[in-house]
C-alpha cells in the first residue's frame, strides 16, 4: 500500500495558502446539518471543537475528565513557540521551520512543519485576544524567553502555567459555543470504539463513566485529539488518565499507527522515591540554565551527603563531555548521559530496586554568583514545588533529577489534512505523528495542538465534508449495533476474569518492561525479549486480573483495566517498531548504532521514512508500511553539540 500524504508541491512558503484555496467549502446553511465528533478537549480538541462549532457545524465534544478544562494540556509549564521575531534576534518562519525539522532529526514531513511555523504567529494573536495573560515587559508588550537550547527567544509564557492559560482560553471559547448551542459537551465519557462502515469513520461508541451507559454517537466526521500514550511506561510526567485507548481502537479499525517507538524522555524530573510512586513530576528545563549537573567521581560516595563530597571528587560530566553546550545539551543527550552514569553505579539518592537513579542539579555556584534573591526570583516556584515533593530545600541541598518519559512523537498516521488512513477520521495534537519527527523541541507541542485545532482542522474537515458529502448512519445499522456489542463484550470480559491482580500491578510491570528494553537506550536483544514478554504479560492479564464492582456505575478499576489492556497491545508495537528501525535517530537510540563518542548515528539511506503500522488481526504481526521522506529545503546533517 502506498501512503499518499497529499502534500502540495511548489515553493514551500505558498503550499498551505494554495491548498487552502483549492479546498472545498461548505455552504453556511448546510453546516448545521453536519455533525462532527471531537474526542478530547485539550489544546487540539478544545480549539478544534470551538472553531468548528463557530463555523456552524453541529459538534459533539467528549472528554473523560469531569470538565473540559482539565485535559492534560493544562499541565504544560514552559511555554509556546511562535515565529514573531519580537526580539529582533533573527527569528523567522523559515528559522522555526528549520529548527523543528533539524530538532526532529530529519524524520518529519517538511510541508507540515512549514505550515506549523507559518500559523504559529496567528496562534499568539488568537490567544492574546482571548485574554491569555502572557508574561509582559515593562512597556506592556509581550515578553519572550529562549527555551530548550534555541538560539533565539521565541517562546511565549504565562509564569510556569502556560498550558493552563492556553487551555483555559480554548476551554472558554468552547464554553461559549456550548452556550450558543453549536457544541454539545459530554464530560466523563470515554470513547471505547470507532465505528467504521464502508471504510469510512461514521461515529464512536462511548461509555458514560457515571452511569456505565454504552452508547453510539454517529457523525459525518470524527476527530481524535486524545493526547499522547507516554503512560504506556506507567511512570511518566503525563497525567494519570492519559491513555491510548481512542487511537488504539482506531488502529484496530484500520488507522495506521506511525513511528510508535518515538517516545521522548525529559532529563529533569524528580526521581522515583519508592515502590509506591504513581507518577513523575517534571522540573522545568530552564533549571539547566543555572544549575550544574554532577555525580560523585567514586561510586562508593554515592550514598554520602552531597556537602561531604569535596569539589575534586565531583564529576560535572556534561561540562566534561560537551565543553561548548555543557549543561544545556538537548534533552535526549542529557537523558542518556544521566542513565549511563547511574547504570555505572554513580547515581545518587534513594536506592530503588538496588540502583540509585538520580544525579545532582546543583545551584550552589549560581547562588554564590547571583545571590539567593536572584535565584529565588528566577526559579522560586520550581524550588518550592521540589521541596513540597521531596521535603528537601534546594537552596541548601542540590536537587536530584532523573529522566522520565514525557511525550510521544509517534501517533496515528495522518496526511497533510490531518486525516488518517480511514477517510473521515482526523487526528490532531499529540495523538497524531505529524510534526516533530524523532524528537520534539521544547514549547512546540502547545504550538502544534493549537495550530491543528484553530487553523488546520476548520479547513480540512470542511473540505472533507464538502468534497465527500458523507451521510450519517442510523443507529439500527448492523455495524453500529455490532460495535456497541463488541464494547459490551470487552467490558464484561474484564469484569468477569476474577483473578488476583489489580490493573495497576499489570501496568507497573508493563512499564518496567518497556522502560528497560525500549526506554532511553535500546538494542535488538532487549527488544526481542520484550516482544516475547509483553504478550506473556497480556496473557496473564486476561487470566489473573481482578476488577471489583460492576459496569453500571462509576468504576475506576474498570476504566483503568480497559486502558491497561490497550497499553498491553500498544507496548508490543512500540518494541516492534524500535526493533525494525535499525538506526539511531533523535530520541530513538539503538546501542548498535552510535558514533565513536556515543552519539546517535542516523542511517538516512535506509531509514529516511515514516514507519506506518497496519493492524493485521489479533495474534498476527502488524504490517509495516513506509512513507518516504524527502528533504527539499533543509539538508540533513549530523547534529553536534560538542
Amino acid at each position: 500500500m502506498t501512503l499518499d500524504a497529499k502534500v502540495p508541491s511548489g515553493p514551500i512558503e505558498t503550499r498551505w495558502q494554495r491548498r487552502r484555496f483549492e479546498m472545498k467549502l461548505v455552504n453556511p446553511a448546510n453546516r448545521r446539518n453536519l455533525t462532527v465528533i471531537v474526542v478530547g478537549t485539550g489544546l487540539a480538541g478544545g480549539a478544534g471543537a470551538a472553531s468548528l462549532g463557530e463555523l456552524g457545524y453541529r459538534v459533539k465534544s467528549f472528554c473523560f475528565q469531569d470538565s473540559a478544562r482539565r485535559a492534560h494540556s493544562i499541565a504544560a509549564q514552559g511555554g509556546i513557540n511562535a515565529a514573531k521575531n519580537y526580539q529582533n534576534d533573527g527569528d523567522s518562519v523559515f528559522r522555526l521551520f528549520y529548527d523543528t525539522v533539524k530538532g526532529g532529526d530529519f524524520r518529519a514531513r517538511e510541508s507540515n512543519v512549514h505550515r506549523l511555523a507559518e500559523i504559529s504567529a496567528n496562534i499568539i494573536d488568537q490567544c492574546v485576544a482571548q485574554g491569555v495573560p502572557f508574561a509582559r515587559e515593562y512597556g506592556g508588550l509581550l515578553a519572550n524567553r529562549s527555551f530548550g537550547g534555541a538560539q533565539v527567544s521565541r517562546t511565549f509564557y504565562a509564569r510556569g502555567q502556560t498550558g493552563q492559560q492556553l487551555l483555559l482560553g480554548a476551554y472558554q471559547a468552547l464554553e461559549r459555543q456550548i452556550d450558543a448551542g453549536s457544541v454539545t459537551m459530554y464530560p466523563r465519557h470515554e470513547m471505547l470504539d470507532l465505528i467504521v462502515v464502508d471504510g469510512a469513520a461514521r461515529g464512536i461508541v462511548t461509555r458514560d463513566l457515571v452511569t456505565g451507559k454504552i452508547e453510539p454517537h454517529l457523525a459525518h466526521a470524527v476527530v481524535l485529539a486524545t493526547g499522547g500514550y507516554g503512560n504506556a511506561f506507567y511512570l511518566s510526567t503525563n497525567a494519570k488518565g492519559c491513555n491510548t485507548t481512542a487511537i488504539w481502537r482506531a488502529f484496530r479499525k484500520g488507522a495506521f499507527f506511525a513511528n510508535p517507538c518515538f517516545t521522548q524522555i525529559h532529563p529533569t524530573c524528580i526521581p522515583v522515591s519508592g515502590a509506591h510512586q504513581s507518577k513523575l513530576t517534571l522540573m522545568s528545563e530552564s533549571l539547566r540554565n543555572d544549575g550544574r549537573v554532577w555525580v560523585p567521581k567514586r561510586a562508593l560516595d554515592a550514598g554520602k551527603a552531597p556537602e561531604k563530597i569535596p569539589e575534586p571528587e565531583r564529576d560535572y560530566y556534561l561540562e566534561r563531555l560537551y565543553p561548548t553546550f555543557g549543561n544545556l545539551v538537548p534533552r535526549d543527550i542529557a537523558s542518556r548521559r544521566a542513565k549511563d552514569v547511574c547504570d555505572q553505579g554513580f547515581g545518587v539518592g534513594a536506592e530503588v530496586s538496588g540502583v540509585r537513579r538520580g544525579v545532582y542539579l546543583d545551584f550552589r555556584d549560581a547562588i554564590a554568583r547571583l545571590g539567593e534573591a536572584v535565584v529565588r526570583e528566577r526559579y522560586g516556584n520550581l524550588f518550592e514545588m521540589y521541596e513540597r515533593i521531596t521535603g528537601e530545600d534546594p537552596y541548601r541541598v542540590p536537587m536530584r533529577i532523573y529522566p522520565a518519559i514525557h511525550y510521544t512523537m509517534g501517533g496515528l498516521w495522518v496526511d497533510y489534512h490531518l486525516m488518517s488512513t480511514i477517510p473521515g477520521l482526523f487526528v490532531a495534537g499529540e495523538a497524531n505523528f505529524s510534526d516533530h519527527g524523532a524528537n520534539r523541541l521544547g514549547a512546540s507541542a502547545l504550538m502544534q495542538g493549537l495550530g491543528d485545532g484553530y487553523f488546520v482542522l476548520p479547513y480540512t474537515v470542511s473540505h472533507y465534508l464538502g468534497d465527500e458529502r458523507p451521510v450519517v448512519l442510523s443507529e439500527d445499522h448492523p455495524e453500529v449495533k455490532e460495535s456497541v456489542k463488541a464494547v459490551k463484550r470487552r467490558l464484561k470480559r474484564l469484569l468477569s476474569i476474577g483473578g488476583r491482580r489489580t490493573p495497576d500491578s499489570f501496568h507497573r510491570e508493563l512499564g518496567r518492561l518497556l522502560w528497560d528494553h525500549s526506554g532511553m537506550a535500546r538494542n535488538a536483544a532487549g527488544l526481542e525479549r520484550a516482544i516475547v514478554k509483553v504478550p506473556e504479560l497480556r496473557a496473564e492479564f486476561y487470566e489473573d486480573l481482578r476488577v471489583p464492582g460492576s459496569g453500571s456505575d462509576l468504576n475506576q478499576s474498570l476504566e483503568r483495566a480497559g486502558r491497561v489492556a490497550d497499553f498491553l497491545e500498544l507496548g508490543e508495537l512500540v518494541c516492534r517498531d524500535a526493533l525494525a528501525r535499525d538506526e539511531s535517530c533523535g530520541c530513538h537510540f539503538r546501542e548498535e548504532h552510535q558514533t565513536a563518542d556515543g552519539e546517535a548515528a542516523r542511517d538516512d539511506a535506509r531509514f529516511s521514512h515514516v514507519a506506518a503500522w497496519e493492524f493485521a488481526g489479533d495474534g498476527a504481526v502488524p504490517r509495516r508500511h513506509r512513507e518516504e521522506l524527502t528533504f527539499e529545503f533543509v539538508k540533513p546533517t549530523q547534529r553536534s553539540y560538542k
Partner: protein
Amino acid sequence: MTRSMRLVLDVWRQKGPKDPGGFVRYEAPDISPDMSFLEMLDVVNEGLTERGEEPIAFDHDCREGICGSCGVVIDGRPHGPLTATTTCQLHMRHFQDGDHVTIEPWRARAFPVIKDLVVDRSALDRIIRAGGYISIRTGSAPEANDVPVPKPDAEVAMDAAACIGCGACVAACPNASASLFLAAKLGHLHLLPQGLPEKDDRVRTMVSAMDAQGFGHCTNHRECEAVCPKGIGVAFIARMNRDFLIASVASRHEVMAHRRR
C-alpha cells in the same frame, strides 16, 4: 532509613447519589512519608481490590496541583492541613505515625456526590458558560502586540487566572458560595483590555448563573481564601461586587434610555 507509618482512616463511602453514605474505617499500614496523600489512598485501594472490595473512588489526574481534579476534605479542611496545596501535592511527611485521619468529599448543595469522594462540579462549568469568555472568532484576532497591557495589570490578571477550578472555595464556605471562583474569572478578564467590551454583561449574567446553580451568597467568612490552593485572595470578590454594582446601575440607565426612546 525512611520510617514507615501506620494510619487509621475514616473514609466517606457512598455507593451513589441516592445512597445515604457513611464513614468506613480502614487501616493504612506501611505508609512512607515520601508518598503523596493520593499515593497513600492508592495503597489502600490496591489492598481493597486484591480483597475483591471496591476501591475508594476519588477524582485525580495531573497529580501536580494544576488540573483541579483532586480534592477531598481532610480532617475538616478542604485539601488538608497545608496552605496553598492541593490534595495531590500534600505529602505524608506532614502526618504522624498513629494519626487518625477523616476523609470526606466536598460538601455543597451545588456539588452532589456521585460516589464516595467524587462529586459533580459541572455547576462551575455552567458559570463559565454564562459569559466567562471573550467573544472572539477564530482567525479574527488583531496582531498580538497592537494592544499593550501594563505589566502590573497583566500580573494581577495572572494571579486571578491561576484558579484551577477545584471547588475547594465552595467546600470551605459556610454558605457554599462560589464567589471566589467567579470573582477570579471576572478579575482575570476585567484586568485586561480585551475583556472590557463585554464587562457589564458578563458580570451580570455570571452572577445570576451562580445564583441559579444553587450556590450561596458571600457573607465575608474568608474561608475560601484560606483553603485556595493557588492563594487567590478575597480582594477579587470586592472587585466583583463593585463591578456588579456598576453594571446594575448601568443596566438601569440602559432601561431608562430605552424607555425614553
